[in-house]
Each structure stands twice: as C-alpha cells, then as structure tokens.
C-alpha cells in the first residue's frame, strides 16, 4: 500500500511537469491569431483577438489559468474548431482506443506464443523464419508499411478500404466500429501496421528472457525431477521471465498511443492522432496542450499499473529496497 501511495505522489509530480513543459513548448509553436484570421484582416482586429484570447497576459498567469482549468477537466475552446476541447477528445478517443486495443491484442496474441516457441526451439527453421520476419517488423517505418499495404490491398486487390473508420455497432452498451464487419475491415490494416513494431519488440524480448532463464540451475533441477516439458516451460520458465516483459509491454502499449499518430495519418483514422496533427497545423494551443496532457496521463497511468502488477508477480519488490 505504502508502495502504491509513493508511486501516486510521484505520478502527480510527473503530470505537473508534463503540463509545464507542454505549456512552455506551445508558447513557441507559432501565432494562433495568424492561423485564425484571413489575409485581409486588419492589424487592429488581430490585436483585439489576441487580447480576447488572453495571449497578452504574462506567461505565469496563462500557466496558472491553464492548470486550474485542466484540473476541472476544462481545456478551453479549440481555436480552430470553436468547440470544447474535452468534448472533442471524448469524441475522438474511442477511435484511437479501438485501434490501440485491436493492435495490442494482435501483438500480444502473436508475440507471446511466438516468443516462447522461438525461445525453446531456437535452431528450428520456423523459429529462424519468425526471427527474420520480426527484424523486418522492427525496422520498416510504419508509414511506409501503411502505404505499401494500401497499395496492395486497396489499389491492386481492392479487398480492403484504404481510409477512414467503418460503421459503428453497439455491443453490451459499448459503441465501437470493431463490432461490425465494415468497421473491422477498415480497422484491420491500420491495426496491423500499428502492431507490427510492438510485435517484433515483445517477441524478441520474451525470446531473450526465455533463453536466459532456461540456462539457470533450477530449470535443470526441474528437468532432473522429471517434470513434463509443458510444466517446466510455462510454470518455471515463463513466470520468471515476466517482470521485464511486463515492464516492456506496459511501455510499449502506452507508446501505441503515440505511434498511432502516424498510422492515423496514413489511414485517415479519425482518432486523437489526426486531431493532434490538425492542431499542430493550426497552432491550436488548447487542443495541443490537452493532447499532451492526455498522452502524459496514459503513460503515467500505465506505469502505475505496471508497478502494481510487479507487486503481484514478484513478492520481492514488496519487501525489497529497504
């Protein structure tokens, strides 16, 4: 318990820092007033708008106002959309979560079995092939892969739609495009692109950890005791690889949110990433700040969860360090 409380305090300090950095960076991103007005707007009108938006106040005042409002969930009104930022994020979030979930599930479902397999049969032909493919997965930039997939599956084969999110269905009160065939066909390519990098990384990590653990004495003793292979691999070996693997997965899955920016752009997926790109183009400061804080929150929370899982997996952490 004490452990979790300290982590929570650390997390809030991190969030305040994120807010400060974000706020400062956005002071230099460009002049939102110029992005808002047309070429024929007079200089006086521009100045009046600057005053109305509070852009003439001292930086500290702007920052304090920003944090105060953010704590109440109010990120202001987007300069370029004229709408509540929190409302817009709430609208776009489901699309990104869908994509991240689908690709996360895909990545884990493929990486864990493949990692264990290549760890055990490291000389086999299949294992070698999987390893070679995983190098490709880690090294091809996602935008290139996305464009290639579109070319093959949309332009040449005409099998899958090249852009956008499909029809939305409702299941157990949740509205998501993953519940319709049209929605799945739209989500498949972006999710595949997004998962490939994570897949490669997680797979290679599990494999390396498996190789490490399989060399240890207690595994030899387990074999010597005549335990069946399945029990040795899954119970004795895999469980002891989990601490670093869970850390990596936690970080990787939260970075899916960040990676999704490029994938969303390539596939015109109407999620948070494309919202961010629009905001950057328009110097839409309230939107940018809210996005940064949101991503900071995702990272901080997933680290908290990872820490909590450690405690469950490895009792040494609960007592260690003191």
């Amino acid at each position, binding site marked *: 318990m004490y452990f979790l409380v300290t982590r929570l305090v650390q997390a809030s300090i991190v969030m305040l820092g994120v807010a400060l950095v974000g706020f400062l960076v956005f002071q230099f991103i460009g*002049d939102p007033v*110029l992005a808002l007005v047309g070429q024929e707007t007079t*200089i006086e009108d521009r100045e009046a708008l600057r005053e109305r938006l509070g852009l003439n106040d001292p930086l500290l005042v702007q920052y304090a106002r920003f944090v105060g409002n953010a704590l109440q969930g109010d990120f202001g009104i987007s300069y370029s959309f004229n709408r509540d930022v929190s409302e817009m994020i709430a609208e776009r979030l489901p699309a990104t979560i869908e994509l991240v979930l689908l690709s996360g599930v895909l990545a884990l479902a493929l990486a864990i079995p493949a990692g264990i397999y290549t760890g055990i049969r490291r000389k086999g032909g299949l294992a070698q092939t999987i390893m070679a493919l995983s190098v490709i997965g880690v090294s091809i930039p996602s935008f290139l892969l996305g464009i290639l997939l579109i070319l093959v599956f949309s332009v040449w084969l005409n099998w899958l739609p*090249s852009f*956008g999110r499909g029809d939305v269905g409702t299941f157990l009160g949740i509205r998501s495009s993953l519940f319709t065939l049209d929605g799945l066909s739209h989500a498949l390519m972006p999710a595949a692109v997004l998962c490939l990098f994570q897949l490669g990384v997680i797979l290679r990590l599990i494999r390396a950890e498996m190789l490490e653990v399989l060399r240890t004495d207690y595994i030899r003793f387990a074999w010597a005791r005549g335990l069946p292979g399945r029990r040795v691999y899954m119970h004795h070996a895999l469980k002891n690889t989990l601490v670093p693997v869970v850390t990596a997965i936690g970080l990787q899955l939260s970075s899916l949110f960040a990676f999704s920016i490029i994938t969303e752009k390539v596939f015109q997926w*109407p999620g948070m990433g494309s919202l961010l790109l629009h905001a950057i183009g328009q110097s839409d400061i309230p939107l940018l700040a809210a996005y940064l804080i949101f991503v900071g929150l995702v990272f901080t929370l997933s680290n908290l969860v990872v820490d909590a899982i450690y405690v469950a997996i490895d009792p040494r952490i609960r007592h260690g360090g003191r």
Partner: protein
Amino acid sequence: MPTSLLKSLAVSLAASVTLTTAVAGALNAETLRIASQGDATSLDPHSHNESFTNYFLGNVYEGLVGRDRNFEIAGQLAESWEQVDPNTWRFTLRPGVTFHDGSAFTADDVIFSMDRALADSSNFKHVLASVDSYSAPDDMTVEIVTRAPNPILLNDLLDLMILDRQWAEANEAQEPINLQAEEKAYSATNANGTGPFSVVSRAQGEKTVLAENPDYWGDKGNVTEVIFTPINNASTLVSALLSGEVDLVMPLPLQDIARVEGADGVKVVSSPEARTMYIGMDQWRDQIIESPVEGNPFKDLRVRQAFAHAVDAQAIIDRVMQGQATLATQYVMDKVNGFNPDLTRLAYDVDKAKALLSEAGYPDGFELTMDCSTDRYVNDGQICQAVVSLLARAGIKVNLIAQPKAQFFPKVVAPDFGTSFFLLSWTPSTMDSLNVFQNVLGSRDLDNGRGAWNISGCSIPEADALAEKAAVTMDAAEREALLKDAMALMVENVCLVPLHVQQLVWGAADNIDVVQHPTFEFPLEYFNVN
C-alpha cells in the same frame, strides 16, 4: 493458436471483400464522393476567411451575387440590381426562395447578415468596407449606400453569405463565432442556407455529408448527395481515388499526376488558378537584415533587375512544378480584371544579371537570407531551393530559412515585416487587381488599411495615385486602363519578381464532369455524375 488466428484473419478478409463489393454495388450513381487534404475550418460563413472554407460553404450558403458557370458575376439571391446614383445600389431580391429549414428568404435576412458580417467577431468586415449604410425599403428590396463610388461593389459582395435571422436567433448564433471562452458555436457545426446543397451531417476532419436542396431556385447538375472526406496523407488520398473509393480529389498532389494519368478510369483535370507566386525584396530598410552586406542593395533598381534576370522561372515550372504552372509576367493572372497583356518578363540571362550587379557595385555578388514557408503553397520549399541555386550562378549566396507556415507568417507579416528576401503569393479574392494594389503593391499606409501585405515595402507613389483613382472610377474601360498603367509601373520598377501562376489540378473518376474556376471554387451544382 497462430493457425486459428490466421484462419479468423482470412475469414474477416473474405468477409470484407464481399462487403466492399456490396457497398460499391449499392452506390447511387448520383453520389459524389470528394476527398481533399484539408477540411473547412468552420460552417459559419462569417467566422473564418479561408478560401477552402469559403468555397465549401458556397455550396450551402449564397450571396446576393455569385459566379455563374462561366465565372461571370450573376445574381444569386438578388435577381437584379440598378445604380440609383453613383453611391446608391438597389437590389431586387429573388422571390420564392426558402432556406433549407423551410423559412422564407426576405430582405430582413440580408440586413441581418450584413449586421452579422460587421460584428466584432466577424472576419468579413472588409467585404463591407466601402459601405456607408444599408436598408430594406420593402420585403424584396435592399438598398446599399457606399461612402464613395465603388465600381467593384458586386465583387466585394461575392463573399457575403446570407443567413436566416430566425434560425440564427433561435440558436444564439447572431454573431459569428466568438472565440472567447464559454461560448459554444452552433453555427460552427450547423448550417442553414439557401444554396443548392444542405448539410446532412458534419464531423469535422472526418466526414461531411451534403444532400441536394430539392427547392433550389436555380439549375443544377444531377448530383444528389455529396460525401466529403478530408484525407491528409497525399499517398492515401491518391490511393483512395485509384481504388475507386472516392470520385474526386482536389487538389491532386503534383507528384502523383503521372500515376493518375497512367491509371484506368481516372483523369487529371487542370486549369490556371488565380494565385501568383512571387519573390519579394526589402526596399524600405536602410540596412537589410540577416545579411553581412552594408546598406540595402535592393534600393538599386539594377540589383532588382539582376535578380529577375537570374531566376529561371521556366526551369522552376518544369522541374519543381512538374509543368503544372504558367509563367507570370506581372502580379496578377490573365483572368483578373486589370491584367496588362502588353507586359513581358525580364528574360532569364545570367550574364546580364552579373553585368547589372557589377554596375550596381557588387561584381562578386553578395550574401543574404531568404525566408520561405514549407507547407503553405504548392511545393513552396522546393521553389525556394531552386531560387537559391539559380541565384548562386549569378554570384548571390542565399542562406535559406525554410520553415513551417506557423513560424514563417508571424516572422514576415506586420508589424515586424522581419525579412529582407522571401517567397510569397497572393490571390485577389475579388478577381480585380485593385485588391492587389490595396494589400500587396500599394505603399504601406497601415492606418488607412493599405499595404498590410506589402512586406517588401516597395513604394511607387505614381502607381498609388492611379490605383486610388481607379477605386472611384465607375466607367469600366477607363478604370481598367488605370489599373493596367499602375501594373505597368510596378513591373517596370521590379517591385517583386513574379514567378508563376499555379495550376489548379484535380484528379477525378472518368464519369465525373467538373467545372473549375481560377479561385478554387467548386460549385457542385454544375458538377455531373455520368
């Protein structure tokens, strides 16, 4: 596990195949699916003065006057007009027109829309800058009184969209969107105009659906539904056209022209656009900035001429613009009123450029810095790189600052005008060169609203006088002659180095007929799906 997953993947793949075919089959022949790299920034017609937004909304809202199929000014909500005296215009409104929600269009709506366009939060005050007062003598008549005779009042009014007073008041949208916190903007996401199409659904940055207005007063093509999708990524945009998921892509990225031309079932449609690209040279500072040179070489006409001779604009068109541009002889294109057909470019001639530089006292050239945006105009970054290497041949060493528009514009515009050498362009929204004299070419006089975009600070008082005279000359021929003379003076003095006139390039499915206007308007009522 992997095998079963593969199987389910295969199943969903197969399912999606049948699904896409089903969708394609069910498509109504009169649905037009359009994609573009950007989206309209708002549905409020008085809030953002940005060309794409204006022209998108031109399909939903109408003005008193508009452009017909041949780009001539024609009556839209005004059926006819007359000039009672040099300052007074009387517009007779079109009877029997209704807004999309069914309410009747009257003179009161015009008055309301003009009030709204003049509100503090409006971005369209310039439209009524010459107007002194306006009134509605009866339900079907509007009178506009100008401060001084304004020969291009009709051009000014092109951008003034008319809203319904009752609708706006019922939804608290009496004023254009106010960016002050706490204000929600109904009119940013909803629209109620009199145009040929009404907005059915709107998800900004995602998808906008328009449906034909069955009660539209004018002629219309056969398009009954328009699905508009913004697609940021150029290659995805073109893929969507090639795979038949969209019917029209505008604009088509230049690097993909060959790809679309080589593909079956799609075509490239292009025509000159009203945007003229030019290079600007600081002529107002006594010492140019970001350069080691002493003083300001650009104050010498010979140096400006040398720059014009040194820049091979045709090479830029061929290499950078992939041939999709035409040489500019002056600071407006030929469809703009006031274009002077007698003017010619200074020919590309490096030796001449070197000779002129020597005469001016710079036999070894000099060094300076160029400011350039990278995401505002078609291939703007590459144009600047080409200019840099072309000038190097004449001995001018240019340090290029290529920057996103978000950094570029705050640096170069008023009040700092923080550049001595730059690439910029202008589209006269009125399609009349007076607009260029007022904003770009006229001597800087910010208090009187002239020359706010005259970043080079060039000043030819004689041309200013001609333009001022043209502004109040009602006789069309006399006025045009004045504007032509003023343009000739600017070109003689090499106020700016004109580069090229951009082409408007769209990609379309073979069965789509489109109408292109030099202003990037896309009047969907003239489009047809065959």
